[in-house]
C-alpha cells in the first residue's frame, strides 16, 4: 500500500463519515429505510487488508457512529460483525486465480455481479443485526426484517453513488 492510496483511503473514510453525519444520516423513507452510508468506509477498504486490522477499524467506525446516534455499543457490535463477515464473504467470492494487488472493490474493477454479491449480503446482515438489537424485542422481528431489506437497498445506493462521485470510473 503506497502513500498515495493510503491518503486516498483516509479521504474516503472522511468523506463517507462526514456525508453520513451531515446529510444521509438524516434521511429516511418512511420509518423503514435508513441509509447507513458510513459503512462505505469499512466496505471499501482494500481487499488485501489484514482482517484483524479491518475489525479494529470497524470498532472505531462503530464508536463514531454510536456517538452520532447516541446508542453506545449497538453500531459497534454491528460493525464488528460486518468486519467478521467481510473476510468470509471475500473468501467465498474469490475470483479464479485469486485476488491481485491491483484489484479494488468497485464495479469497474470487479464487475457488477461480484460487486453486488459482496455488498448486499454484508449490508443486509449488518442491518438485520442492528435492527434486531435496536428493537430489543423478538416480537418485532418481522419489522426488523422489513427495515433491514429496505435499508439495504438505500444504503447500497448511497454508497455506490458516493463511490462513483469520488472515484469516477477509474480502475
Amino acid at each position, binding site marked *: 500500500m503506497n502513500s498515495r492510496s493510503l491518503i486516498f483511503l483516509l479521504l474516503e473514510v472522511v468523506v463517507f463519515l462526514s456525508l453520513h453525519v451531515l446529510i444521509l444520516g438524516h434521511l429516511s423513507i418512511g420509518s423503514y429505510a435508513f441509509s447507513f452510508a458510513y459503512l462505505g468506509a469499512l466496505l471499501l477498504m482494500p481487499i488485501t487488508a489484514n*482482517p484483524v486490522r479491518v475489525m479494529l477499524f470497524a470498532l472505531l467506525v462503530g464508536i463514531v457512529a454510536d456517538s452520532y446516534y447516541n446508542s*453506545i455499543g449497538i453500531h459497534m457490535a454491528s460493525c*464488528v460483525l460486518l468486519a*467478521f463477515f467481510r473476510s468470509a464473504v471475500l473468501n467465498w467470492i474469490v475470483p479464479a486465480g485469486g485476488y491481485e494487488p491491483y484489484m479494488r472493490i468497485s464495479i469497474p474493477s470487479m464487475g457488477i455481479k461480484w460487486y453486488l454479491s459482496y455488498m448486499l449480503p454484508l449490508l443486509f446482515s449488518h442491518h438485520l443485526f442492528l435492527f434486531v438489537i435496536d428493537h*430489543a424485542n423478538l416480537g418485532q422481528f418481522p419489522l426488523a426484517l422489513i427495515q433491514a431489506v429496505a435499508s439495504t437497498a438505500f444504503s447500497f445506493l448511497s454508497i455506490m453513488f458516493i463511490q462513483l462521485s469520488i472515484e469516477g470510473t477509474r480502475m
Partner: protein
Amino acid sequence: MGSLFQFLFKYRLFFLFVLLEMLCSWLIFNNNTNQRLAFISSSNSAVARVLSLNQKVQDYFALQVINSNLADENARLNTELTNARLQLDKMGMDTTKPLNELEQYTFKVAKVINNSVSRVNNYLTLDKGFADGIRNGMGVISPAGVVGSILVCSEHYSTATSLLHSKMLISAEIKRISAFGTVKWTGGDPTIADLDFIAPHLQPEKGDTIITSEYSSILPKDIMVGVIDQIELAQNGNFYKIKIKLATDFSTLGYVYIVENKYKTEKDSLQFNTSKEFNE
C-alpha cells in the same frame, strides 16, 4: 502449549470477533435502557420459569412425605375428636373422673400394602405390627368409613380381616331411627353389603345412614358404614332384607387407621364371663 498458541493464532479473527462482541454487549446493556430492560426481563422470566418447573418437580417427589404426614395428622385429629365426643358424653355422668381417663380410643395410621376384594374372604396387609403397638382384634377404619379388624400381627406387619369377609360381622345402627342391626358381606359386589336383623315395625328408608353402634368392642361408635340402597321384607317376614352401599371403597384403600380401645379386654372378659355363667 505451542499448539494452543497456534490454535489461538489460527482463529485469531474469530476470537477477536467474540471478544469485541462481548465488549459491545457489555456496553449496550450498560448504556441503553431499552436493551437492558429487555435483557433483564427476559432473563428474569426464563429464571422464573425454571424455578417454577423445579418447584413442581420437587412437589411431585415430596407427595409421598406429604401424604404420610397428612395421614398422621388425620390420625391425631381423629383421636382427639373421638375422645372429645366421649368426654362430652361422659362428663355429665361422672364429674369426679379425670378427663384423661376418658380417652378410650387411640388411632394409629398404617399403609395398606396388600389388599383384595375379589375373593369370598378378603384380607388386608398393613405396614404396622407389634413393634408399633398393634394387637389382634383392634379395629381398622379408613377416612371414609369402616374397614375391618386386625387378625394377626407380626413384628412389623399385620393382617386385617376386611369387612369383605364371610365371617365378619359389624354391629351397626341406622342413625336416623337408632335401629340396631348387623352388617355382613355376602360376597360378590365389593361395594354392597347386607344389613340384617332390622325388625319390620321400624321404618328404614332408602338413603338412611348406617353407622357403627356402641355395642361393638373393637370400633368406636359413629363410624360411617354406608347408606341404605335397597329395602324389602324378607320372606319369613321377621326382618327386613336391606342392602347397603358401603362408604369405604375397598379397591382404592391407601392409608387406614388402626383403632385401639383401651377397655376392650375388660368389656370382652365381662361379657364372656357373663355368658359362661348363664350357660352353665
